């Protein structure tokens, strides 16, 4: 079994979620198990109500960054949600909501997009990560 890739996804802006999706898809393509642990604003972006919406960009993007991101989208870049769906089709990609963030945002499991596989606590995340890398985004 290849070493897992474990991403703690905190930020909920579209640029950072796009980076998460590309990292996840690349690892899945190599046969590495991928675990995403959704916290705070990232979890908010994975709700049924918001997943297809505009989540803004990181502050450093500025106007020029906004224009560049929009140009790539117009050129046909898949959304981060679509890239994650493809990554799940390609390999083992498990997406879990942080239970603390569920409470913070007053969410129920039924509020989450089907991309999310379940709700877990941080200990389960660490145990699933095993000896694999953990990256915070």
């Amino acid at each position, binding site marked *: 079994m290849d070493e897992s890739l474990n991403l703690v996804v905190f930020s909920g802006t579209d640029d950072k979620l796009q980076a998460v999706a590309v990292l996840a898809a690349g690892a899945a*393509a190599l046969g590495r198990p991928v675990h995403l642990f959704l916290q705070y604003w990232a979890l908010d972006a994975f709700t049924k109500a918001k997943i297809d919406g505009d989540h803004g960009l990181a502050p450093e993007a500025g106007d020029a960054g906004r224009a560049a991101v929009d140009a790539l989208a117009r050129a046909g870049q898949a959304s981060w949600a679509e890239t994650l769906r493809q*990554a799940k089709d390609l390999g083992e990609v498990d997406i879990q909501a942080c239970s603390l963030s569920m409470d913070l945002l007053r969410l129920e499991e039924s509020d989450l997009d089907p991309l999310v596989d379940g709700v877990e606590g941080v200990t389960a995340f660490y145990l699933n990560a095993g000896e694999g890398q953990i990256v915070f985004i």
Partner: protein
Amino acid sequence: MTAETTTTVTTTIDARGSFCPGPLMELIRGMREAEVGDVLAVLSTDKGSKADIPKWVGKAGHTLIGVFAREGFDEIIVQKVR
């Protein structure tokens, strides 16, 4: 422009316009549907493909037949081994 190979391509995957890692993902899907011995050509405008796809092919145990620079895109030709 002619291919610098005598291998016959079974399937061409036109992933031009798809962004990283789209072309690789399309190739993997194509490989799943292909038979052992089939030759797949991927057309890509993503600048990463010519590095990423050969590395994936090596890791996955297939054969890289070649990477060819075409006009405005790259063509990567791969044979399914297993």
